[in-house]
């Protein structure tokens, strides 16, 4: 019924729509009583989470970063530079696309996709790296280091370093460098050096450990460009700040396209940067249900998953107190997910807080559920999503079908009239090999080669 209007070019979107979605009776109402706002939490603590569980050697660098960030965010020159690069380099604002054929599987609810997949480098990651690279320049640092799992944040960091003429070193688990050889080549094409991490479990968490070790030794001229809204203060609040543009745009776009706020927003959660960027704009809208979908891997009963909030316990890792997958001794448990971007055994501390107070519902989505949604979006919308984002797509269908089962949305609206925004955090080009193997699309020889590559 609502036509998708042509995209406005810049920020001059309508701001006068009434907030038709604000019922004040949703599940969020209780905790909002007596509280002005959940937005713009500054850290270092989000309830009992966050903080700085870090070696003393790095505290001075964290202080410098915090001071620089606080000054920059209040500096119109800095925010104008961010806006300029977002517009002229990253391609923002990203579209909000109604997925009409995909929505046919959503019990009548209308699903809209926030198209972070259309950003330069193919995901939301660019928002954060541009912001942090500008901060690094303000601090006079000439070298960026980053961790990466499958390579998306590494590619984004290498991109920002190239754009700003900085040296870039990316730490990547040795196993991942073999499995993601093309992304290693992309980073090298962009001028970055990729260091395979051979120690520990050789996964993303070990890449972060190694990046922290590098940072301790080179902190005088090096900025650690952490890729997610986790880690020690000020990283969680700062990374969120650079991603808030996702939710801010989506909130305006949905009001413009539907005349009201959505009934739910959905995002996938690894460390949680795309999710917090999307959620932030809606935290104070009590009528908007918010859902974060963690990687359920083979299933949360199997032990092979990355569902930190669903099954973890509070602990400290990489500088923050947050939900953490850990054993009885406090040793970090290795996470598992078909999606490398969600394969992290903890989660940003603000998410832990939002989970505890009940503002956001966090649920696991298995590899199989995510891959079904992946294929569905490919075939109904002609969009190949990142497997990370496919977790959010699968979750949105669950939410809609749950509403259908109970007759109405959480706020009591007819499902037929319900609106859901899904953050399509990245494009799936990087996942074609994984998906082809999952769906058995490769011919036998190629499949064997791919399988052999996995086992090396």
């Amino acid at each position: 019924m609502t036509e998708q209007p042509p995209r406005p070019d810049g920020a001059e979107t309508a701001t006068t729509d009434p907030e038709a979605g604000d019922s004040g009776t949703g599940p969020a109402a209780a905790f909002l009583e007596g509280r002005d706002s959940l937005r713009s939490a500054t850290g270092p603590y989000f309830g009992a989470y966050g903080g700085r569980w870090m070696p003393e050697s790095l505290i001075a660098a964290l202080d410098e970063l915090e001071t620089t960030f606080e000054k920059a965010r209040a500096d119109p020159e800095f925010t104008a530079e961010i806006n300029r690069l977002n517009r002229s380099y990253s391609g923002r604002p990203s579209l909000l696309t109604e997925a009409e054929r995909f929505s046919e599987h959503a019990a009548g609810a209308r699903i809209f996709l926030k198209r972070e997949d259309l950003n330069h480098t193919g995901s939301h990651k660019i928002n954060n790296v541009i912001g942090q690279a500008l901060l690094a320049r303000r601090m006079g640092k000439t070298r960026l280091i980053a961790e990466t799992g499958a390579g998306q944040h590494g590619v984004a960091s290498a991109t920002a370093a190239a754009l700003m003429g900085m040296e870039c070193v990316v730490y990547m688990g040795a196993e991942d460098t073999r499995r993601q050889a093309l992304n290693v080549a992309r980073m090298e094409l962009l001028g970055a050096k990729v260091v395979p991490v051979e120690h520990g479990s050789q996964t993303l968490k070990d890449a972060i450990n190694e990046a922290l070790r590098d940072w301790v030794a080179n902190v005088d001229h090096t900025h650690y460009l952490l890729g997610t809204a986790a880690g020690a203060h000020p990283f969680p609040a700062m990374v969120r700040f650079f991603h808030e543009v996702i939710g801010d745009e989506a909130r305006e776009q949905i009001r413009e396209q539907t005349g009201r706020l959505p009934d739910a927003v959905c995002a996938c959660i690894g460390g949680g940067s795309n999710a917090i960027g999307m959620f932030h704009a809606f935290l104070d809208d009590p009528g908007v249900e918010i859902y974060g979908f963690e990687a359920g891997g083979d299933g949360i009963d199997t032990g092979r998953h990355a569902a930190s909030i669903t099954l973890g316990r509070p602990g400290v890792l990489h500088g923050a107190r947050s939900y953490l997958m850990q054993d009885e001794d406090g040793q970090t448990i290795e996470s598992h997910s078909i999606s490398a971007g969600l394969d992290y055994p903890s989660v940003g501390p603000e998410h832990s807080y939002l989970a505890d107070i009940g503002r956001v519902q966090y649920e696991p989505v298995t590899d199989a559920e995510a891959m079904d949604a992946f294929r569905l979006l490919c075939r109904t919308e002609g969009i190949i999503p990142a497997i990370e984002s496919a977790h959010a797509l699968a979750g949105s269908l669950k939410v809609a079908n749950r509403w259908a089962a109970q007759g109405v949305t959480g706020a009591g609206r007819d499902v037929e009239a319900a609106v859901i925004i899904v953050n399509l955090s990245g494009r799936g080009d990087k996942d074609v090999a994984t998906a082809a193997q999952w769906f058995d699309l490769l011919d036998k020889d190629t499949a064997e080669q791919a399988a052999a590559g996995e086992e090396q």
Partner: protein
Amino acid sequence: MSVPVSQASKSAAAIDRARQAGRAALIGYLPAGYPDVPASIEAAVALAENGVDLIEIGVPYSDPVMDGPVIQDATVTALANGFRVSQLFDVIASITARTDVPVVVMTYWNPVLRMGVDEFARRLAEAGGAGLITPDLVPDEAAEWFEVSDRHGLDRIFLVAPSSSTERLHRTVEASRGFVYAVSLMGVTGARNAVSSAARKVVDDTHAAGAARVCVGLGVSNASHVAEIAEYADGVIVGTALVAALAEGGPDAVGTLAAELRTGLD
């Protein structure tokens, strides 16, 4: 965050005994459970028998961000061999049963949190441990540890670094009991060819901030390093070199190296 000076500090007493003998203290680090629990106990006793004044026992942890490859590999081995945190207390009790040299524990914070700070401290005190060195716990986050360490009479040894501001040095010195651990350089554990030029300044600044005992660790691997640092610090901490010796030659090699390191002080 008051520091009750009245509480007897075992690690301070060990450093003071060395000082009365006219020298700096020698502190040796080894991980618990490496290569296995019995050998880690033997190696620690070998430290005590060869002139080490204070033993530092590390808790193997999955994500040791302040450690270089040698100690990482040792702790990975210990964990792969099935080391459990509850065995730490057996290791400490076995060492303290065989030597009067005090034992402090170096641990990343999550294993302590997981067990419960009070439970961990109670079991450590019962095993005869002297306190904790906490590489990823700064005083800013240590409210619970202040209370618990007071309750159980344990030393709390925080780190200072070349990057620490004067204000942070003061705060950390005030928060610490036993001694202050001065990181000699900006980096992780591991042998270095020479002692960092930053070490002396950190020690001097930490003394100036009020510390009675400042011990230097990171990159200290031979007797001449030990002798150099002993000129300005109250204690010298050796880790990676001892772990490498244990890997290559077992507890005997640890004893031999400890005796050699000790020549740097005599």
